[in-house]
């Protein structure tokens, strides 16, 4: 037996903290966080000087910034993508960034009549079997072929792999007889023909039926106005019809990843989003390690936020999901809506003959 094995054997007798210890420590940490949030003590400058500086410094800084920005704007002719990269870098309110993305969307080439889309969903599960218990994440791949001229889609769903949050979970899974993905999730690869494209698996609509009634169409995406103000009106109508208890996040409601939208329609969606208050932007990396600009807004689910990650250069959606209700690693029974969909970098475009 090697010295490492001796150490690991000794390690087996060291227990993890019990629930009450963990709960106490969590409460203590949250208390710490709360106390650190309080305003920092005043600086040592004398009050009068402090007040004068407090007015003077931001004023001068603002002036310099305005001069610098206007000079830069005039000196350099920029493409919409360049402008978007600049407006979207760093963190802060999202409106300027969204307006820039609207310009990017406007000059995007429209997609071909048939669009291939691949997305991955993570399905965390706590499995109890033969008195054993382990956590596992099923990676579900959903492929769709959307036909824009016929308004139909072909969809294939397959449960690809099992991921284990920790090596221990894998071990318990093996002890439980290595049940297959099928045995755990009860699903098999499926091939479905979708008769009408607005299928919530293919395109995200917060309330598809309300959208359909508001636009009077089975494919509401076709009737997105190109005027941002009218997009907001439509959104209001959808909300009234769906009877949502409160205001729902505009970001979560807009069909931004409908690949069959026209460039002008997508531009209007971004511009409309820029007109709704409260959205923030931040640079993030997605699970495929692509860097994009995340727009974070209300999700309509209490205590959580909706995130959509965009490629700044093309305004396309890279990934989206809900933040704030747990995560795959900290999966606990009862955690809902923990998923993330990943979009492949370039939708493969298949031209179709009429």
């Amino acid at each position, binding site marked *: *037996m090697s010295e490492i094995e001796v150490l690991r054997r000794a390690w087996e007798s*060291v227990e993890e903290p019990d629930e009450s210890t963990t709960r106490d420590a*969590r409460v203590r940490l949250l208390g710490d966080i709360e106390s*650190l949030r309080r305003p920092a003590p005043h600086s040592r400058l004398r009050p009068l000087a402090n007040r004068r500086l407090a007015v003077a410094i931001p004023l001068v800084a603002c002036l310099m910034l305005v001069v610098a920005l206007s000079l830069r704007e005039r000196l350099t002719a920029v493409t919409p993508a360049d402008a978007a990269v600049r407006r979207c870098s760093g963190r802060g309110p999202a409106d300027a960034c969204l307006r820039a993305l609207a310009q990017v969307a406007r000059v995007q080439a429209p997609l071909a009549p048939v669009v291939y889309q691949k997305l991955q969903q993570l399905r965390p599960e706590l499995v109890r079997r033969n008195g054993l218990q382990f956590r596992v994440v099923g990676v579900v791949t959903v492929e769709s072929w959307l036909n824009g001229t016929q308004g139909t889609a072909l969809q294939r769903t397959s449960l690809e792999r099992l991921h284990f949050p920790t090596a221990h979970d894998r071990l318990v899974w093996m002890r439980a007889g290595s049940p297959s993905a099928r045995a755990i999730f009860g699903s098999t690869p499926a091939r479905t023909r979708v008769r009408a494209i607005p299928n919530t698996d293919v395109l995200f609509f917060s309330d598809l039926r309300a959208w359909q009634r508001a636009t009077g169409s089975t494919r509401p995406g076709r009737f997105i106005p190109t005027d941002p103000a009218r997009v907001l009106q439509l959104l209001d109508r959808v909300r009234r019809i769906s009877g949502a208890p409160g205001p729902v996040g505009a970001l979560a409601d807009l069909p931004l990843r409908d690949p069959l939208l026209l460039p002008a329609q997508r531009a209007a969606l971004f511009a409309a989003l820029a007109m709704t208050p409260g959205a923030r932007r931040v640079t993030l*990396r997605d699970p495929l390690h692509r860097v994009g600009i995340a727009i974070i807004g209300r999700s309509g689910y209490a205590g959580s936020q909706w995130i959509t990650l965009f490629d700044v250069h093309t305004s396309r959606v890279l990934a989206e999901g809900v933040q704030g209700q747990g995560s795959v690693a900290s999966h606990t029974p009862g955690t809902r809506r923990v998923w993330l969909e990943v979009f492949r970098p370039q939708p493969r475009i298949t031209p179709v003959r009429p």
Partner: protein
Amino acid sequence: MIAFEGGLVATGDATLIEGSLTEAASFALIFDRHYPRIHRFLRGRVGADLADDLASEVFSVAFRRRGTYDLSRADSRPWLYGIAINVLRRHRRWEARRLSAMMRAADPQITSEGSLVEHLDPALAAALAGLSFEERNLILLFAWAELSYEQLADALALPVGTVRSRLHRTRAKLRATLVADAELDVIGRTGEGHR
């Protein structure tokens, strides 16, 4: 957001930590994810009582330093273990005293509450006591926390080459002590004693 890659699901710590800069409460998710292992590691080093306090301190320090977290690291474990080592540093004398106490104790002891005292085999305790604090950090992060060479380098702020050579040396030292101590006989008993 959630990230996953290769064999390890759900990294994405960087995203949570970044999110916690604006939304402080989301740091609680980092706590949920890593508290049990950090606590267990500290418990292995200094015993359950002190581990409660130290583990809390680790996350408190981590929260205050979250602004300096390198967001290109998806997994925050090396960072957290690095903080844990720094917190332990102030208690290395206590750890040494505890190890030497366990060297003398022949059998696992039962406390008045009836729980098993955290107990290492005397031979192993002696071998660990023979290492320096830095050497113990390295070998235990490797054997217990199961960090890779790159993660060890991150946690201990050392170059990977140094980690590799020091780990090799420390393992040899540990092996020599263990073998010399009991001609492997004790090790065999250790296994049974803990089953």
